[in-house]
C-alpha cells in the first residue's frame, strides 16, 4: 500500500514509478554488490529498531534512538584520539559508545520514573539537544585538522574489516545479528525480560503482581540506549571510505527514526526486525540506484516508509497482514506464540 502511494506521488511529480521501482529492487537485491550494500545499511537499522522494540514490548514509546546513536558514533570517534593498542581501542570504543547511548537515555528514564514525563517529549528534546552537542563536538573537538568538514577518522586497526571486498558491508553486521539474538534472549528468556513484557501487556496486572514500574522503566531505557549507542559505533567504525562523521551528520541522521519503522514492520520481534531491517536497508541501497538511474530522489524511500508506518497503526490491517503471512514462507521465522501475543496487545 505504501508502495502504491509512493508510485502515485512519483507520478504527480512527473517521474516514472515503474522504472524507479525496477531500479530500486534490482539495486537492492539484484546482485551481490546490491545485497551487500543492503546488509550494510541494515546494520545500524537493526540496532536502532531493537531500541524501539524493547520499549514497545514494555509499553513505552522510546523514540530517542536518534540522539543516542549520534552520541554513540561520536564516542567511538573520540576514542580514536587515544594512542593505545588498536585492539584495546576497538573494545573501548564499543564499550564507550554503548555507555554513551545508555547515559543519554538515563534522563528519560529518570524523568519518567520520578516525574511522570512522557517519553515522547523527553526523547525528542534530548534528540535535538544531542544534535547540537554533536555539531559542537564535530566542529570543535573532533575536527579533522586536514579537512574541516569532517571529524577525524576512526584509527586504522580499530575499524570493522570489510566483509565483501568493494562494498560497504563490514563485519559489523554480525554485531547487529548478535545483538538481536541477545535482545531476544533477554526479553523472552530472563525474568526481567518477562517483567518488561508483562508491563507492556497489562501495566495494572503487572503492578499488582509486584513488578516495580520504575525498575522496568530504567531497564527498558538503559538497554535501549545500549543498542542505539552501539548502532552509532558500528556504523561509524564499519562504514568505508572515510570512517568519520561529517558536519551536519548526513550519513547518520534519520537512522534512529528509520529504526522505528523497521521495528514496527518487524512486529517488534528481534527476528522480525532482522528481516525488516534487511528489507529497509535494501530500500536505502536501492534508493541510491533509483536516484542514479530513474532520477527519483532518495527521499522517496522515506515517504514510502511514512505511509507504511501510518497504516501500520491500524490494528485490523495488521491482523489482515498476519493472516496473509501465515500463508507465506515468513511464518517459519515467527513463532506462533509471539504472533498470538501481538494480536492480543493491539
Amino acid at each position, binding site marked *: 500500500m505504501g508502495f502504491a502511494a509512493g508510485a502515485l*506521488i512519483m507520478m504527480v*511529480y512527473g517521474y516514472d514509478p515503474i522504472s524507479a521501482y525496477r531500479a530500486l529492487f534490482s539495486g537492492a537485491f539484484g546482485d551481490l554488490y546490491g545485497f551487500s550494500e543492503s546488509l550494510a545499511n541494515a546494520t545500524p537499522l537493526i540496532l536502532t529498531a531493537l531500541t524501539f522494540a524493547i520499549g514497545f514490548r514494555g509499553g513505552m*514509546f522510546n*523514540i530517542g534512538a536518534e540522539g543516542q546513536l549520534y552520541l554513540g558514533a561520536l564516542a567511538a570517534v573520540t576514542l580514536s584520539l587515544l594512542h593505545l593498542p588498536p585492539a584495546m581501542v576497538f573494545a573501548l570504543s564499543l564499550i564507550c559508545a554503548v555507555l554513551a547511548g545508555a547515559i543519554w537515555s538515563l*534522563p528519560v528514564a529518570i*524523568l519518567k520514573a520520578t*516525574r*511522570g*514525563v*512522557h517519553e*515522547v*517529549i*523527553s526523547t*525528542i*528534546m*534530548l534528540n*535535538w*539537544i544531542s544534535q*547540537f*552537542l554533536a*555539531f*559542537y563536538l564535530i*566542529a*570543535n573537538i573532533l575536527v579533522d585538522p586536514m579537512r574541516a568538514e569532517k571529524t577525524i577518522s576512526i584509527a586504522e586497526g580499530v575499524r570493522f574489516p570489510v566483509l565483501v571486498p568493494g562494498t560497504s558491508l563490514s563485519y559489523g553486521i554480525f554485531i547487529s545479528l548478535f545483538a538481536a539474538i541477545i535482545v531476544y534472549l533477554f526479553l523472552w528468556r530472563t525474568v526481567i525480560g518477562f517483567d518488561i513484557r508483562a508491563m507492556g501487556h497489562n501495566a495494572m496486572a503487572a503492578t499488582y503482581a509486584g513488578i516495580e514500574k520504575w525498575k522496568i522503566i530504567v531497564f527498558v531505557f538503559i538497554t535501549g540506549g545500549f543498542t542505539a549507542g552501539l548502532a552509532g559505533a558500528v556504523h561509524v567504525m564499519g562504514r568505508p571510505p572515510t570512517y568519520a562523521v561529517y558536519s551536519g551528520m548526513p550519513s547518520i541522521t*534519520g537512522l534512529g*527514526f528509520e529504526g*522505528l*519503522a523497521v521495528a*514496527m514492520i518487524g512486529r517488534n520481534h528481534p527476528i522480525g526486525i532482522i528481516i525488516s531491517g534487511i528489507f529497509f536497508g535494501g530500500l536505502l541501497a536501492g534508493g541510491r540506484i533509483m536516484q542514479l538511474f530513474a532520477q527519483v*530522489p532518495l*527521499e*522517496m*524511500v*522515506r*515517504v*514510502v*516508509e*511514512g*505511509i*507504511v*508506518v*501510518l*497504516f*501500520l*497503526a*491500524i*490494528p*485490523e*490491517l495488521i491482523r489482515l497482514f498476519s493472516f496473509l503471512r501465515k500463508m507465506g514462507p515468513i511464518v517459519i521465522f515467527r513463532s506462533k506464540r509471539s504472533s498470538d501475543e501481538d494480536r492480543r496487545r*493491539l
Partner: protein
Amino acid sequence: MNLAFLRGIFIGSLHAMVPITLTATGEVIGESSGLFNIGLEGIILMSAMTGALGAEAGGPIAGLLIGVATGAAIGLVFGSICTYFKGVQLIAGVGINLFAAGLVTFWLIDLGVPGHHAVADEGQMVDISTPLGDLSPMIIVAFVLPVLTYILLFRTKLGLKIRAVGENPQAADVAGINVHRLRLLSTVVGASLAGLAGAYISVDWMGSVTKEISAGRGFIALATVVFSGLNPMLVLLGGFIFGFFDNLAVWVSTMPAVQRVIPWQFVSMAPYIVTLLVVAGVIGRVRFPAAMGIPYERE
C-alpha cells in the same frame, strides 16, 4: 539604546511564540477530545511547504489558507485512523512525521535548490507598523485564538461535549454523542491550527522553507499543552516562554561578544532544555482527560 534592545527581544519572542501558541491551542482541542497527536511536527513541516507554494501563487493570505487546508487534510487522515479504524495514535503520529520529513525534502529537491527554498517577496506577509515596532498580524491571531478556544471549551455546549468524549466516551455515547465524529472534528480543527502555524513560519516569519523548518516546534507545542494542563489561557503564557527561548538563539547570533563565551550550538539547545525542565517541573499537578490516547470501542 537599552530600551530599543529589550524591545527587539520582546518583538522577536512575540514572533517566535506564534507557531507554538497556535499549534498548542489546536492540540488542546484535540487532546480535550481524547486524541494525542504527535504528528504535529509533520503537519507544521508539510504546511510550511504547501503554504509557501500557495503564497507564491496567490499571495500571503492564500498561503495561510492552504496551510490550514493541509493541516486539516492530514488531521482528517490521522483522525480517521485513530477513531473509526481504532489505530494506535502514537504510531500514526510518527508515520505522519516520517512521511512529511520525506516528502518535504523530496519536494525541495524537486524545486531545484536542495534543502532550501526562499519564498518570493510578493508571497510574503507584510508586517504592520505599531508604536512598538513592526509586528506580524498573525500575532493578534495567536492572542485571540486561545481566548476563543477557552470560550469554546468551557462556555459552550459543544465544548462540554468535546470534553465529555475525552473524559468518558462510554457515558458520552450513551448520552447520544457521536464519539468518533466529534473526536475526528476536534482533531481536524486542531490540526488545521498546526497547519496555520506551519504556513506562518514559511510565509511570514522566516520567509523560506528548509527541511528542518519545524525544528521540533510540534513537540515543544505538545510540551506547552502539558504545561497548560489543557487550559488555552495558559497556552498563551507557555507559548511566550518557549517563544522567548526559541528567539534567544537568533538574538545571540547577532552578538559576537556572547558567542565567544558560549558557542552557538549550546545556545541553540536552550529551547529544548527549557522544555524538558518545564515539563518535568509542572507534571504531577496537571490532569489529563481519563480516556486520552485510548481508542474508543463500543461494547
